Every structure is written in structure tokens, then in C-alpha cells.
């Protein structure tokens, strides 16, 4: 089927999300909490678009809105721009000092004075999109989740205790759109979600490259003993290159 996005006719399959279709057709819809790897959450609401079906328009979040009939989509008219600006203003109120949110605020022209009306917490970086918890669940670890409701909602480990499930892989930090999750690697130790991890040293260069728990998790998944000597990715490459060199020398 065909849908029209900003006047451009786009091929679409029934059930595809509007955001997906737009991206494929090089039409830009801003997002914050969207990740290609994890299912849409529609939490940041930046991806709102207007769907016009037989003359009636409604605003939907494009990341989770599946197309079912040949509709017209408007991604960037004045109404949507205004709404997005308000959304970013509210995000900015929650995370006043966050770099990523600040960048958005600049692009959408959020006025400082409208943000300043509220009591601000400069320490807050989390926009509560929940991508981190989704990623952790996908991994099968499930060490973190969103807890409480309303204004007390937050992402945390159970009872704010260091989670025994957490392997310190930092996938949560990778998917976090606002870099709100702190990972501190120092002196062969990683600190994340209130838990300390011992890190594994590369047998060749001595660099710490992963937590012991993560390495165990990886080899457990494979069902083999972990090798005696563990190497970081770049040393493995070097050794591989050397091995190939010696193969060609022998030939």
C-alpha cells in the first residue's frame, strides 16, 4: 500500500510504523527515546505526527503507530512544531543541565524563561524513557526496571541495592539517549548501578576491557570454559594478523 508523508508517496506494508516508513524514505522525524534495536516506547513523544484519514486529523506518536490504511501524514506543520517545542520545554525542565536535551532545546527554540519558571534539579539527566530497562531485559539479566509511579517514577535496581543479576556490560548506558547512566571505570574496577565489578585485564596489553561477570556470562552462553588467556579486541586483531602472516610465510 501507499501512504503520503509530507506530500511524498511512500511504499508501506500494513502494520509498519510511520517512523520506520519515514526513515526509509529519507523523511526526518525527530526522536529521542527511539532505538532501532528495541521496540518503540512512545515515551519522549517527540516523534508525534499528524495522521489525516478522510479529512480527519489526529496526532499520533509515529514510532508506535502502525499504518493500516492509505492515510496522509504530516510530520512538520506549525501545530506539530509548537507541540514539539512544548515537549522539549518540559524535557528541559526535567533535565535542565543535560547536554542532549539542551541540544534539542536549541534546535526547537525553547525559551530559557519558560524553563526557569520551575524548580530545577541540575543533577537530573534521566528522561524516564525506559530504554535501559528494556535493553537489560532483552539481555536476560533484568537487573533494572522502572519503579514507582507518577512523579516518583525512576529507573532503579530492586530496592536500590546492588543487583546480583547485573553483569556490568553497560548496554543500558549505550542505549540511554541522554547519557544519564553513569559508568565509571577506574583502576580495574567498574562502577555502575551502585555495584562494583572487577574488570578483566587483556593478557597482552594489560588494558581492562570487560567485567569478570560479563566474561563469565559470555562464555556461559557459549557453554565452553573461558580460555585461560583473555585478550581485548584490538590485541586479538593483532594476534590474528600475526598468525595470518606466519601462514603466508610458511606457504
Amino acid at each position, binding site marked *: 500500500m501507499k501512504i503520503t508523508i509530507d506530500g511524498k508517496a511512500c511504499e508501506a506494508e500494513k502494520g509498519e510504523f510511520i517512523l520506520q516508513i519515514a526513515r526509509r524514505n529519507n523523511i526526518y522525524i525527530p526522536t529521542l527515546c527511539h532505538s532501532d534495536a528495541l521496540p518503540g516506547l512512545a515515551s519522549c513523544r517527540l516523534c508525534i505526527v499528524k495522521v489525516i484519514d478522510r479529512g480527519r486529523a489526529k496526532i499520533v506518536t509515529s514510532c508506535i503507530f502502525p499504518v493500516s490504511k492509505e492515510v496522509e501524514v504530516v510530520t512538520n506543520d506549525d501545530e506539530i512544531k509548537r507541540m514539539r517545542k512544548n515537549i522539549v520545554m518540559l524535557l528541559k525542565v526535567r533535565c535542565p543541565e543535560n547536554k542532549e536535551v539542551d541540544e534539542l532545546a536549541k534546535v526547537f527554540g525553547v525559551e530559557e524563561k519558560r524553563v526557569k519558571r520551575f524548580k530545577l534539579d541540575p543533577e537530573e539527566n534521566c528522561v524516564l524513557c525506559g530504554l535501559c530497562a528494556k535493553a537489560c531485559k532483552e539481555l536476560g539479566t533484568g537487573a533494572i526496571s522502572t519503579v514507582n509511579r507518577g512523579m516518583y517514577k525512576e529507573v532503579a535496581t530492586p530496592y536500590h541495592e546492588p543487583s546480583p543479576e547485573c553483569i556490568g556490560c553497560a548496554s543500558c548506558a549505550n542505549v540511554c539517549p541522554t547519557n544519564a547512566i553513569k559508568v565509571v571505570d577506574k583502576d580495574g574496577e567498574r562502577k555502575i548501578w551502585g555495584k562494583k565489578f572487577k574488570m578483566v585485564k587483556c593478557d597482552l596489553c594489560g588494558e581492562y576491557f570487560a567485567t569478570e561477570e560479563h566474561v563469565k556470562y559470555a562464555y556461559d552462553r*557459549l557453554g565452553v570454559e573461558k*580460555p585461560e588467556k583473555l585478550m581485548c579486541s584490538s590485541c586479538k586483531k593483532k594476534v590474528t594478523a600475526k598468525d595470518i602472516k606466519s601462514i603466508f610465510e610458511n606457504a
Partner: protein
Amino acid sequence: MKNCLVVADPNKCIGCRTCEAACGIAHSEGDFFTANVSKINFNPRLNVIKTAKVSAPVQCRQCEDAPCGKACPVNAISNENGCVSVDQDLCVGCKICMLACPFGAIELASQYKDGKLVNQKELKMSEEGNPTVNGKGRVVANKCDLCHGRDGGPACIEVCPTKSLKLVTYDDNHNIVEKKDEDQREVS
């Protein structure tokens, strides 16, 4: 102690492939004559080369400093039991040993354990992009192990109708000694 090895005399070899058959059977745990064809583990570890100029089985030379072992990224190949042997559980099937062997004497084959094909942990074959769990057999490095543990030594030597294969070994002074297959028969 240096490794022994099996070598062939191309002048005697008639290219009958009996050694290949014997090798396959010797390394197969099931009953060769009654088992279902699809379930037979028949993967000879030597390869009879036949060209206009030469015919001879080629098998592992059991190199002391084996290039296959050096190239193996998971250290699955080591010098053990008087020969270069593969730990098939460690092998991931990267095939670099096949490139590394100067004699082309290493091959990959399906892994069998207790007469059964070993399946991969969770190799997902994509079907229209949807990963599904599919029992694909493990494929691992497979090479001559001098019939380690077999009474009577290498099966290929035993069956060769023209006695073109022989086991080469070393005496205490590291001189090459040929074990005549007659001697071997006496031992067995």
C-alpha cells in the same frame, strides 16, 4: 619424543581408496553395515590425490611446530598423544587451519559424539529475517590422529593392498626408522 607419521609411497599406490574407507570406518562409532546411511559418520581423515602424474593418499605430517595449531584462534589444536590432535569441543569452525596446513591435510567435518551428530548450541538461521532455532550440526576440524587408541595402529596401513603406506618413527638417536607393516602385525 618426536611424533610418528604415516607416509605413502606413490610408486606403490594404485589409488584404490581402500585406505580412505578404512579411515572412515575406523573413526566411526556406529555399525557401518547396519546403520541408516544418513546417520553414518563417514569422514576419512586422509585424502587420496589422483592426478596424471601421481596417485597417493595425503595425510597429516604431525608437524612438531604445527602451522595449523599456531593459526588456531581458540587453541583447539595441540601436540598431544604423539600426534597433532584437535579438541573438537573447542573448535568453532573458523577454517583457518585449512589455509594454514602446507599439505592440505586438515578438513572440517560434522562432529559426532557417542554415535550421534552434535548440534550447535543455538545457531539461528534467518528465514525472511526472523531468527529461528534450527538444529544445524557442528562442523569442526578433522584430521589424522594416527588412529590413536586403536589396537593395531593406523587402519590405513593395515588395509593397503599394495602396502604403500608406512608408519615412520624415530629411534632414541632421532634417526628415522621405518616400521615395516610386518613388524606391526607381530605387535598386534
